[in-house]
């Protein structure tokens, strides 16, 4: 049998240049077709998802148009639906989460990548991976019974006492609200920031560190002024990735945010987010317009995470290529 095989460049598969008929007889073409159908179904599902979200939200798009995003009245009884309180809630809780999670996550990633011996680093990373596997509803459970009482009795009174002059910390301390949701979200996204940032930091070439140390910088200076700026793009990518998670996070937020569609400058106030309003109201939504408004909120959420994920992936790829491109030995 004359089989001349050529290797496609890189890690690509081996391609036979045998005739179509002989490949068909040996089953290759059939296998190719079958696996292609499975692969194509992934693309099909994705298209279908976008299509269903678009089709499912026709009514509110026609009824409200762009004012859907500008009005803050959410009144199912009078069929008035405005998305502003939920967009606001999503952004505020995510911002709080990032404020808490970025310093903590970045610090931990620096420790794991720069300081800890490899074995310790791997062990800790194993625990971090397990932390990332904890389901959202468990975070919500701990949020309701542990974090909310803690917030109501200890943290929020303290904040009011010392920072109460700021509009951020006015109003009664319910426990439930933007701040609590943000803190719970922070705990949930820290593992993502740590894992990705650690990988990126580890991919920074050794000579960068050695050069900085040889010029007389301290360990911290070489880390903070040389290694971290070098990995900047990738770290930003990990933050975007975490932000995308935070925006779409549903259960934990639903359980601690208070489920009230209000826009308030105070972080202590209860609120609602896009994901949490869908989770808490979709099932009970009566009437086409109500359901479809919730679906449109889902579409908004989808587009937000789509953009963030795309940006994040781009930055991570660019940075890690830069790292390996500069003579990583």
């Amino acid at each position, binding site marked *: 049998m004359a089989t001349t095989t050529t290797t496609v460049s890189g890690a690509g598969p081996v391609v036979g240049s045998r005739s179509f008929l002989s490949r068909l007889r040996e089953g290759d073409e059939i296998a190719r077709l079958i696996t292609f159908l499975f692969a194509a179904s992934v693309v099909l599902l994705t298209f279908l998802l976008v299509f269903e979200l678009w089709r499912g939200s026709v009514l509110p798009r026609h009824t409200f148009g762009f004012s859907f995003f500008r009005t803050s009245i959410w009144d199912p009884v009078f069929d008035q639906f405005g998305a502003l309180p939920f967009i606001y809630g999503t952004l505020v809780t995510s911002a709080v989460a990032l404020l808490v999670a970025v310093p903590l996550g970045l610090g931990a990633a620096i420790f794991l990548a720069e300081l800890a011996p490899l074995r310790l680093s791997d062990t800790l990373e194993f625990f971090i991976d397990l932390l990332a596997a904890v389901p959202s509803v468990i975070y919500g459970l701990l949020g309701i019974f*542990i974090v909310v009482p803690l917030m109501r009795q200890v943290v929020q009174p303290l904040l009011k006492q010392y920072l109460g002059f700021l509009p951020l910390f006015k109003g009664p301390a319910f426990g439930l609200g933007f701040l609590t949701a943000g803190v719970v979200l922070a705990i949930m996204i820290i593992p993502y920031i740590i894992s990705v940032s650690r990988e990126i930091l580890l991919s920074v070439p050794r000579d960068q560190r050695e050069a900085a140390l040889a010029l007389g910088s301290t360990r911290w200076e070489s880390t903070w002024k040389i290694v971290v700026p070098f990995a900047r793009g990738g770290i930003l990518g990990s933050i975007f990735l975490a932000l995308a998670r935070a925006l779409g996070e549903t259960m934990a937020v639903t359980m601690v945010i208070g489920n009230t569609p209000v826009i308030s400058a105070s972080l202590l106030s209860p609120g609602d987010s896009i994901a949490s309003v869908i989770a808490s109201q979709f099932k009970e939504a009566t009437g086409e317009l109500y359901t479809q408004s919730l679906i449109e909120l889902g579409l908004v959420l989808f587009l937000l995470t789509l953009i963030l994920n795309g940006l994040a992936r781009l930055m991570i790829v660019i940075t890690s290529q830069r790292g390996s491109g500069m003579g990583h030995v």
Partner: protein
Amino acid sequence: MSARLRWRKFVSAFMLSMTGVCAAVAVSALFLILSYLVYHGGTSVSWTFFTRLPAPVGEAGGGMSNAIVGSAKLLLLATLIGVPIGFFGAIYLAEFSGSTTAFVVRYAADLLNGVPSIVIGIFAYTLAVLPFKHFSTLAGGFALGVMMIPITLRSTEEFLRSVPNPLREGAMALGASKWKTIATVIVPSAYRGILTAVLLAFARVAGETAPLLFTALGNRFWSPGWNQPTASLPVAIYNYAISPYEDWHRQAWAGGLVLLGLILVINIVARGILARGISVSRT
């Protein structure tokens, strides 16, 4: 030593120890979560928890047997949908496809992977609940299956690609056809990785609540067959946790402990399979 140098050394030591504190805080979160669950839920996990239906409000006892069985059914469906599509799709990507098709499929999978779980729930609702006009186990399983596809696909492809090319060339030089090479050489030599990928995907969807809220809904009783709303462990935990009853809170803690235990065990086993020597060298 000049004052400035001393200051710089102090800053270095201080900041570096702070990073250690950050790492300690992050890792301790896992142990805090575990100990809270054991402390609050440990006493409620008993034989009746696994074998009884939920008790009515105000009545002590009762279990979550229907939710556990419901979760098992949902996960079985999810695996039946997610694993074949992910696995065969990955074979196409790694062994057959040209670079353009591969890019499109990979892009779609990454996109699907980034979709928030609640949006997957809406998708399953419009596709598998609305046309039939009732919530069902099938719809819930479909939602979870959709979530499993991209995770299985991407990691299986990674592991297939890490099989060295000489193995492929060797098999084909011996006259094996391509599909035979894949079935007898490539997949067997990557099976540990593939198994890990499937287990991790399984563990990931096992704890998902949001896609089930309005697909599988929930049920206080047994759900016969596949066409009726069914209880599931994550949704039951959610419903119990937000209820005002003390008894139900205890059930939520117990459910949480069982769910997290299951997920952590699967994760540890999956990583163990991979660590115990993957048969191909990964670069």
